[in-house]
C-alpha cells in the first residue's frame, strides 16, 4: 500500500490576507486584492492595476540571516514568511529534528525581475562598481528554496522548479511523489512570485496580455465573455506535507490529503495553452489520485482572464463532462490577480478552505461564461457544495501543465481553521 501524504501546515502571503483563515474569509466575502499600482508610477502603461501584498512582519528579518533577508527580492521574503507560517501551523517550530528526511520544493515562474531591473537602472545611472554584491544572490530563482533551507537549517534536498505558472503546482506534486515513494518523510512545498515592477508590465503589455480596465472592482474576469486580460498579482503559499504515519505519531492536525499529481508538456504555441494537453494532465492527476472523473467535486482552474481561458474550459469539458463528471469550476484570479508560480499553491490553499467549509468560492467578476461553454458549471456566486476531492490545474508558457488533487481528511482529521 502506498504511503499517504497529508497536509499538516499551511502558510499564505496574498493580496487578500497573510493568514489562511483571513485569506479564506476574504475570499468567501468576494473581496478583491486588486487596486492601483503603488510600487511605481504606472501612468505610462495602459494597465495601472495590480494585486499587491501588504506584508508587515517585523520578525521577517530575524536570526542568523537577518541582514541577508532584508536584501532579498520579495519572492524570497514571501517564501520565507509563508514557509515559517506553515511550519508553525504544523507544530514544527524548527525542522522537527529530522533535517535530512525533509526537503524543500519551491516553484516559481518569474523570480527576481524587480531586483534585476533595479540593478540595471543603478548600473546605468551610477556605473557598474556601484552594484550591490547582494544583487545576484537576491534574485536568482533558487534563492527562495535556499533561504528557506538556510533559515530553518534543513539539510535534505532543496529543489527549485521554474515551471512558469505551473511551477508551484509542480513543486507540490514532486514533493508528494518524493514522500509517497519513500525518498523523504516530509517536505515544505509551495510557490512564490512577486514581479510588480515596470519591466513586467512592459513585457506583458507587448503581448497584449494585461487588462486595460481601470476599475479594480471589475477586473480580471476569468472565464467571462468580456475578459480582456490579466492583472499582475503576487504572493506565496507553502505547505508542510508529511507521510501520514509521521503526522499521526506527532499527534498533529491533518488539514487535508494531497492525493494526486501530474505534469505534462504539449501544444503548438509558445504561450497559448492547448486544451488536449491540459485535459491529459488533469486526467493523469485524477488517475494518480486513484479517482475517476466523476469523483472530482470541484475544480480550481488557473484562468487568468486572458482570451485563452476558454481552452481550460475545453480541457475540463473533455476530461470530466464528456466522461460522466460534472464538477463545478472556479478560479480565484479575480480575487488576487495572476500570481504566476504561486497560483497553484494559492489555489490549493483556497481548495483546502473550500473542503473545510464545504463551499465553493465565486469566480469573481464572472457575469457571462465564454461563448460555447455555457453548459459547464462555472461558479459565478459562492455556494454550498458537497466536496470530497478538488482538482487544481495550472499551466504556463512553454507548454507546461501541472495539476494536483487534494481531498478532505479522514474522519477525525481537523482541516484548516478547526
Amino acid at each position, binding site marked *: 500500500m502506498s504511503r499517504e501524504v497529508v497536509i499538516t501546515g499551511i502558510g499564505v502571503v496574498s493580496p487578500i490576507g497573510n493568514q489562511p483563515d483571513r485569506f479564506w474569509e476574504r475570499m468567501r466575502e468576494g473581496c478583491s486584492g486588486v487596486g492601483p499600482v503603488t510600487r511605481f508610477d504606472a501612468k505610462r502603461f495602459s494597465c495601472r492595476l495590480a494585486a499587491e501584498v501588504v506584508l508587515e512582519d517585523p520578525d521577517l528579518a530575524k536570526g542568523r540571516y537577518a541582514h541577508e533577508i*532584508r536584501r532579498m527580492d520579495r519572492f524570497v521574503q514571501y517564501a520565507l514568511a509563508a514557509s515559517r507560517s506553515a511550519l508553525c501551523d504544523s507544530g514544527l517550530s524548527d525542522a522537527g529534528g529530522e533535517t535530512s528526511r525533509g526537503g524543500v520544493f519551491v516553484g516559481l515562474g518569474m523570480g527576481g525581475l524587480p531586483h534585476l531591473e533595479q540593478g540595471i537602472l543603478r548600473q546605468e545611472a551610477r556605473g557598474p562598481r556601484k552594484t550591490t554584491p547582494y544583487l545576484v544572490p537576491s534574485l536568482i530563482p533558487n534563492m527562495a528554496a535556499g533561504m528557506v533551507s538556510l533559515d530553518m537549517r534543513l539539510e535534505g534536498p532543496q529543489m527549485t522548479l521554474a515551471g512558469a505558472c505551473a511551477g508551484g503546482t509542480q513543486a507540490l506534486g514532486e514533493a508528494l511523489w518524493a514522500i509517497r515513494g519513500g525518498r523523504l518523510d516530509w517536505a515544505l512545498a509551495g510557490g512564490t512570485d512577486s514581479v510588480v515592477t515596470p519591466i513586467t508590465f512592459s513585457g506583458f503589455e507587448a503581448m497584449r496580455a494585461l487588462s486595460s480596465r481601470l476599475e479594480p472592482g471589475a477586473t480580471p474576469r476569468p472565464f467571462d465573455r468580456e475578459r480582456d486580460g490579466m492583472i499582475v498579482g503576487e504572493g506565496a503559499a507553502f505547505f508542510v506535507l508529511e507521510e501520514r504515519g509521521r503526522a499521526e505519531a506527532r499527534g498533529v492536525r491533518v488539514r487535508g490529503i494531497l492525493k494526486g499529481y501530474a505534469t505534462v508538456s504539449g501544444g503548438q504555441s509558445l504561450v497559448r495553452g492547448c486544451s488536449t494537453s491540459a485535459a491529459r494532465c488533469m486526467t493523469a492527476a485524477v488517475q494518480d489520485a486513484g479517482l475517476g472523473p466523476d469523483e472530482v467535486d470541484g475544480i480550481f482552474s488557473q484562468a487568468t482572464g486572458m482570451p485563452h481561458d476558454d481552452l481550460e474550459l475545453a480541457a475540463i469539458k473533455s476530461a470530466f463532462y464528456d466522461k460522466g463528471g460534472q464538477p463545478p469550476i472556479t478560479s480565484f484570479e479575480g480575487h488576487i490577480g495572476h500570481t504566476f508560480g504561486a497560483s497553484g499553491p494559492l489555489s490549493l490553499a483556497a481548495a483546502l478552505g473550500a473542503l473545510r467549509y464545504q463551499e465553493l468560492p465565486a469566480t469573481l467578476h464572472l457575469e457571462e461564461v465564454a461563448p460555447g461553454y455555457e453548459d459547464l458549471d462555472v461558479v459565478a456566486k459562492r455556494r454550498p457544495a458537497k466536496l470530497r476531492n478538488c482538482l487544481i490545474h495550472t499551466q504556463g508558457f512553454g507548454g507546461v501543465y501541472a495539476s494536483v488533487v487534494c481531498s478532505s481528511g479522514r474522519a477525525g482529521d481537523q482541516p484548516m481553521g478547526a
Partner: protein
Amino acid sequence: MGDNDLFERLIKHLGEFLETDVSHLTPASRLATAVAGLDSMKVFELMLYLEDAFGITVDEKAVEHLDTLHDLEAYVRSRLPTNPAAV
C-alpha cells in the same frame, strides 16, 4: 573634521548599515572580529555604503589591509575630498 567627529560619524554609519547597536566599538576594535557576521559580502557592501555616506571612492586593495576601526577611520580621512592627499 576632528578625530572624534569622524570616528563618531563612522560608528553612526556602521550602525545604520548593520541595523544594530555598535556603540561598544572603539578605535581599537578589529574589523574582522568586532562585529559578528561581518563577512566579505557585507564588507564589500559596507564600502559602497561608506562611499555614499562620505562622498569618497574606496580602493578595494587598500581596504584589504585595514585591521582596526582606527585604520578604517584613517583611510576614510585620507579619501575625503578636503584632504589634499585624496585622489
